[in-house]
């Protein structure tokens, strides 16, 4: 299938400035974004559970250039969302899709193999990933080290593509039941607050979450750093760090496709995706809307109904 | 439609002065496939004397029966008697509305009440759940030519916030049922005027005047009979009709039916089940006239 994908890209390459995909990174465990300008670049393309990055993040900055992009199902939703928001032009982007079997969580792998320096070899087959590091071989079932988001994946195939290679896979689940949220919210309110206090205290304010987010499009004008408007101070305190996460999540309400890049990028493993999951659930419950499926849709927070179906007027 | 089934509270008068109401209600419901499950060991609701004495006592007397009904697993209690209806409904509504009141009531009871069932009149069920259409389908002896006035009495639909049934000023449920049975219903403007209620014993003079007025109006409209839904109304108009006549120097001879008796008649139920012989003013002339006038016309 990978070969088929390479062929397809090679065929399309002459029409494009370049195609973004994944290649092997500094070791076998870490894939890295790959910019393919020439056919020989295409040969470096990899496809598999290590293709963790959402490459759509690059697209808004490339607006106006003709590029190709290789997408997993979740990545394709980000592309759709960017199209909906006019942040990229459809005619400038060529989308290459392939069925995704889920990606790994490097954090989970680290928990198994430890903070090892040198990775010697990585193999995956039949749902098992084998990592050789510092002489030891670790065999891990893919489902144990899978990124959480892949557990409730409904769109393993690109929702939008110009070229789709391989056989479409059935979704992991029909319906996202948000069990992770339910579990978190089974705690009393005070414990939830305490949890976040401690988590936010750990935040180093690196903004990796923001930078990895394909829909964080303000870039140089992020309210986190501006004085006008002055939403946040630069103080290294829990309050501003917490507020930043709330701002990030709120700005993504109705837009976020829960691609999970924010959480993946977090160097201290704060589960910041949970905030977005909550908004996503609220949007789904209230408006029966999923972001990033239809570039033509009007997102619910930019619309209204005189009589809302699922919003009850208060009796007082 | 699945068979209609309810807990049933007959009320004390059904064991005595209004036994024909009780008999005919049961016979009618059986004929209409409505299952009345008598509340086991039910007791008196307390009626007016109880609520005139104290609201907690009144609610406790009624409440005991609501509790028994809930124990049966029923969520709706039917009663034919408007006075029982008022007391049971008042008790239920008051207790649902105020935990404090419910607590006071429970203090008087052996078994505290938990769930509070809904209470409706048999008439409401016949009108709303079965409907005039459902009745009409089963009529085999239409009451053609029988001119009646329907007299609902003062508390069957009032106060509207409590009863939540029919109109408080111009109720029509019995009218429609009577029409379904083939009778001609005359426009009776005093449908909800009080007959004198329980003052028959202590202040007969009041009843003579009020019931007298009702009978006068019915007569004037040319009614062959009065149709009622309340034991007390029926007693004042029927049993006391003689007293009314002598007090007011009138000579009414108006039979006063329970609506269940006339519906039962139209459904062709045996007379014995309808208790027509229990009425004081002889109903037979009016009943014998059914259909005749139409033939003549």
């Amino acid at each position, binding site marked *: 299938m990978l070969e088929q994908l390479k062929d397809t890209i090679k065929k399309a390459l002459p029409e494009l400035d370049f195609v973004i995909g994944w290649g092997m990174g500094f070791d076998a465990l870490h894939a890295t974004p790959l910019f393919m300008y020439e056919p020989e670049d295409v040969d470096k393309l990899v496809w598999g559970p290590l293709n963790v990055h959402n490459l759509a993040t690059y697209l808004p900055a490339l607006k106006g250039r003709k590029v190709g992009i290789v997408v997993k199902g979740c990545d394709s939703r980000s592309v759709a969302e960017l199209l909906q928001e006019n942040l990229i032009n459809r005619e400038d982007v060529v989308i290459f899709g392939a069925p995704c079997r889920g990606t790994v969580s490097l954090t989970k792998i680290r928990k198994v193999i430890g903070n090892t320096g040198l990775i010697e070899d990585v193999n995956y087959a039949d749902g098992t990933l084998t990592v050789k590091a510092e002489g030891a071989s670790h065999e891990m079932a893919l489902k144990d080290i899978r990124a959480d988001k892949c557990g409730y994946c409904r769109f393993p195939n690109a929702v939008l593509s110009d070229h789709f290679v391989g056989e479409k896979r059935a979704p992991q689940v029909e319906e996202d039941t948000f069990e992770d949220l339910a579990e978190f919210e089974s705690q009393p309110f005070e414990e939830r607050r305490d949890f976040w206090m401690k988590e936010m205290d750990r935040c180093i304010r690196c903004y990796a979450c923001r930078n990895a987010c394909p829909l964080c499009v303000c870039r140089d004008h992020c309210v986190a750093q501006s004085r006008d408007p002055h939403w946040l101070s630069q103080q290294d305190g829990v309050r501003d760090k917490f507020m930043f996460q709330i701002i990030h999540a709120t700005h993504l309400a109705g837009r976020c496709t829960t691609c999970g890049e924010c959480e993946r990028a977090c160097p201290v493993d704060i589960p910041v995706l949970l905030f977005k999951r909550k908004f996503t659930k609220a949007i789904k419950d209230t408006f029966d809307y999923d972001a990033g499926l239809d570039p033509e849709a009007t997102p619910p927070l930019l619309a209204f109904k005189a009589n809302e179906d699922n919003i009850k007027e208060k009796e007082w | 439609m699945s068979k209609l089934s309810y807990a049933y509270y007959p009320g*004390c*008068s059904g*064991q*005595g*002065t209004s*036994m024909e109401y009780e008999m005919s209600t049961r016979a009618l419901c059986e004929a209409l496939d409505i299952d009345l499950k008598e509340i086991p*060991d*039910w*007791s*008196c609701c*307390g*009626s*007016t*004397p*109880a*609520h*005139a*004495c*104290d*609201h*907690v*006592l009144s609610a*406790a*007397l009624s409440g*005991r029966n609501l509790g028994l009904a809930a124990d049966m697993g029923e969520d709706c209690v039917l009663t034919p008697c408007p006075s029982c209806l*008022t007391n049971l409904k008042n008790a239920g509504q008051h207790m649902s509305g105020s935990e404090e009141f419910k607590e*006071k009531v429970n*203090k*008087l*009871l*052996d078994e505290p009440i938990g769930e509070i069932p809904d209470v409706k009149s048999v008439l409401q069920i016949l009108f709303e759940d079965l409907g005039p259409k459902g009745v009409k389908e089963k009529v085999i002896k239409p009451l053609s030519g029988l001119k009646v006035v329907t007299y609902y009495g*003062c*508390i069957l639909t*009032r*106060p*509207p916030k409590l009863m939540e049934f029919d109109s*408080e*000023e111009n109720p029509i449920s019995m009218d429609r049922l009577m029409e379904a049975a083939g009778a001609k219903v005359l426009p009776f403007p005093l449908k*909800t005027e*009080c007959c*004198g*209620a*329980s*003052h*028959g*014993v*202590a*202040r*007969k*003079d*009041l009843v003579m*005047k*009020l019931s007298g007025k009702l009978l006068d109006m019915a007569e004037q409209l040319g009614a062959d009979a009065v149709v009622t839904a309340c034991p007390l109304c029926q007693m004042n108009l029927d*049993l*006391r009709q*003689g*007293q009314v006549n002598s007090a007011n120097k009138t000579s009414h001879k108006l039979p006063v039916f329970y609506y269940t008796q006339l519906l039962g008649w139209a459904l062709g139920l045996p007379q014995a089940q309808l208790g027509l*012989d*229990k009425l*004081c003013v002889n109903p037979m002339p009016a009943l014998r006239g059914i259909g005749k006038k139409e033939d003549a016309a």
Partner: protein
Amino acid sequence: MQTVNLTDTIDRSFMEKVMEESEQNLSLCYQCGNCTASCPYTFGFDIPVSRVMRLMQTGQKKAVLTSSSIWLCASCTSCTTRCPNNIDVARVMDVLRHVARREGFVKERRVKAFFDSFLDSVRKHGRVFEIGLMVDYVRKTGRFWTDMDLGPKMLPKGKMSLTPHRIKGKDAIARIFKRFEEENR
């Protein structure tokens, strides 16, 4: 007629008690008279119901509690049904009877006697025993001729049982009354 000295006779605690027990705000009454207009008993009342409401507004406790009207009210709820201010007037009348009973004001002894006989019958048998009730009422009032004429009409029809209906729970009913008395002692 005499001058009512409002400064001295307004009994505010009485007004408040009736308002609290009836859960009705008496100041809502603007004296339109619709209750009096609608009340079928006005002809028999010594004080029409709208005037009872007015006397309540001015705290005239004695005038209200010594009236016949509060006993003759049959709770037909015409007043409640038609009150433009949604006052449950019938409930106010009910509460006035409660207060009158508690404080020993009973203008209409026969009405109260009938109520008492009724409740005694319930207390004793669990359900009303109609003949027993009548006998008791006659004993209480001495009015042995009450409804004598009706007996011959009813008895042959078998409508009046000569023995009470016994129910298993009659002791439970008696306990309700007993606890009620204890609560209100």
